């Protein structure tokens, strides 16, 4: 998939990942122009990676996990613990991804074969909560209720990561790599089978593929990306609270992914930025209700979206684009972009 652009009459094709890289570069300027800080920009981006990781499973195979907070959380703990030994961010994040995958693999083996649909959501929710209570009990590793502190950021090739701008561009680089990995996965034959599973699980075995194996692999890949996002959040906040593992964290990621748009690659990132921006704006409002009760506002927005726009922001954008395209095509006769369906309009139809 590439986007066609016309420059001086010639069609240019720009790879979406190149556009994504450009967006990552300008993003902090936009956030700061919107009245938030560079730290906020890093936070939004981390949630975008988390949501895209979740979407790699939910949006592609159709398995709604309500327990991905555990991978985010264990990724955060793993990176935090590792940074105390070796304060080298790339290594610590790799460990975060590895730990998330190690946690995810046996779970995938147990859960995926036995549960689908809302049963899958219930089981993952319960298992995630189990890991939350485990984290509280494993005081030596996690710091218990107090959480993990003393996370060392260190320097990266002589760059001081404690400066918000440097931290942001480090996060952006990691996000780019994680999203590139997700892009490659979804465009691979493996990703095609996953999509087929989402569309019609019963027919996939007829083609000779075992849906369980593909769903298990998608579960583990998605956990790895969520683990990296968790590791980044440990470095951003310099602490990990056990609440990171709670189902409420997963709930927020689910909400963000849905608002952004399932079935859309970059939709969840748009969802993360919109929801987190709204959240930060509400918290900063002078009105008491906005500061205290913002989760209710976001919950209401979410409920309305599920009801009227289940495709999320990406779905709305698609609808608007189709509408504009049809108007445009109708005005100019039948010379729209090739391959786009043109709605027959009275008087202009060929």
């Amino acid at each position, binding site marked *: 998939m590439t986007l066609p652009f016309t420059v001086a009459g010639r069609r240019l094709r720009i790879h979406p990942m190149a556009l994504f890289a450009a967006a990552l570069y300008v993003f902090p300027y936009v956030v700061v122009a919107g009245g938030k800080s560079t730290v906020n920009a890093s936070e939004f981006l981390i949630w975008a990676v988390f949501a895209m990781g979740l979407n790699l499973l939910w949006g592609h195979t159709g398995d709604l996990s309500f327990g991905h907070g555990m991978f985010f959380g264990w990724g955060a703990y793993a990176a935090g613990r590792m940074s105390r030994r070796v304060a080298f961010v790339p290594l610590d994040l790799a460990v975060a991804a590895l730990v998330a995958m190690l946690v995810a693999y046996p779970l995938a083996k147990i859960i995926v074969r036995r*549960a689908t649909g809302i049963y899958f959501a219930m*089981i993952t929710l*319960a298992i995630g909560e189990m890991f939350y209570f485990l984290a509280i*009990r494993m005081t030596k590793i996690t710091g218990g209720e107090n959480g993990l502190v003393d996370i060392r950021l260190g320097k990266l090739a002589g760059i001081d990561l404690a400066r918000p701008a440097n931290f942001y561009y480090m996060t952006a680089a990691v996000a780019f790599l994680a999203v590139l990995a997700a892009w490659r996965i979804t465009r691979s034959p493996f990703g095609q089978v996953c999509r087929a599973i989402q569309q019609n699980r019963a027919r996939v075995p007829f083609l000779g593929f075992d849906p369980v194996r593909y769903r298990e692999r998608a579960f583990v890949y998605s956990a790895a990306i969520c683990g990296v996002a968790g590791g980044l959040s440990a470095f951003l906040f310099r602490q990990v609270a056990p609440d990171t593992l709670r189902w409420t964290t997963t709930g927020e990621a689910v909400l963000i992914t849905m608002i952004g748009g399932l079935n859309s690659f970059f939709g969840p990132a748009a969802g993360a930025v919109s929801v987190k921006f709204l959240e930060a704006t509400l918290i900063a409002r002078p009105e008491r209700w906005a500061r205290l009760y913002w989760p*209710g506002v976001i919950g*209401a927005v*979410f409920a309305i979206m599920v*009801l009227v726009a289940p495709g999320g922001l990406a779905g709305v954008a698609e609808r608007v684009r189709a509408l504009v395209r049809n108007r445009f095509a109708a005005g100019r006769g039948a010379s729209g972009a090739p391959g786009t369906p043109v709605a027959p309009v009275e008087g202009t139809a060929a």
Partner: protein
Amino acid sequence: MGNAVVLGAAGGGLHQLFDLFLNGVILGGIYVLLALGLNVILGLIGVINFAHAAFYMLGAYLAFSFTPHIGFLPAVVAAAVVVGILGMVMEVSVIRPLYSRIPEHALLLTFGLTLVATQVVRAHWGDYAKPFAAPKFLAGAYSLGGYEFPKYRLFVVAVTAVVVVAVWLLLNKTNLGLVIRAGVLDAEMVGALGINVPLAFTLTFGLGSLLAGLGGAMVGPVNGLNPDMANSIIILAFVVVVIGGLGSFWGSVVGGLLVGVLRSVLVYWWSPATELVPFFLMAGLLLVRPRGLFGVEGVFE
């Protein structure tokens, strides 16, 4: 929800164990009401109602607010009825349009509504835990053969038992129950026979919500009230439903009592494991019996 009350007054050994067991049955009774409502809606309509715990919380707070005006028992009934009506309103207004979509959408919608409900409770009743004393006529305990039976706990057990039997009779021995069960198998065909299936579904939703409201209204004097009570119990309700089996009536009853007694005994014998054991039980059961204790073949498969 690590605040199960352990009765300290009784002596050692057998008495202690008995108290823990009785305490577990009370706790279990509340779980039974909660899981039963969740499972009735899940098994019959195929919707997983995330807002179920929010209804439970609303039941508790409404009973708390009604009690000074109309007394404890009428307040419990009124709270349960109001929550039941709220459930029916929710079904008609926002759940019904989602029946034609995948079941996850109803789960997500009710999750959003739970966030709203939690904030409404915080805004209206405050952020902090509230004590809720049992009424005078239910305070104190009966003494029998050296064992203490706190009156309020007996009351919870009795109400739970009556409600479980009543719901079973309603679903299995009445025309409404017949319509609901037939509607699950083939709603279109039942509709073709001239029966109002959507109305039956609405009533089912109301019944499930009413059970949640009743459980919440009765839990106040045991555990007190706080705005996090929905968040902390919803997972346990799911665990009970999974342990008992999706769509299984007796599964919810046995699962609820099992988890209640286990938690209560563990609080005393091995407290760090209290929160974890229900999950391990669920995970272990999932390995050997993926459908739970009494799961029915073909539900959500």
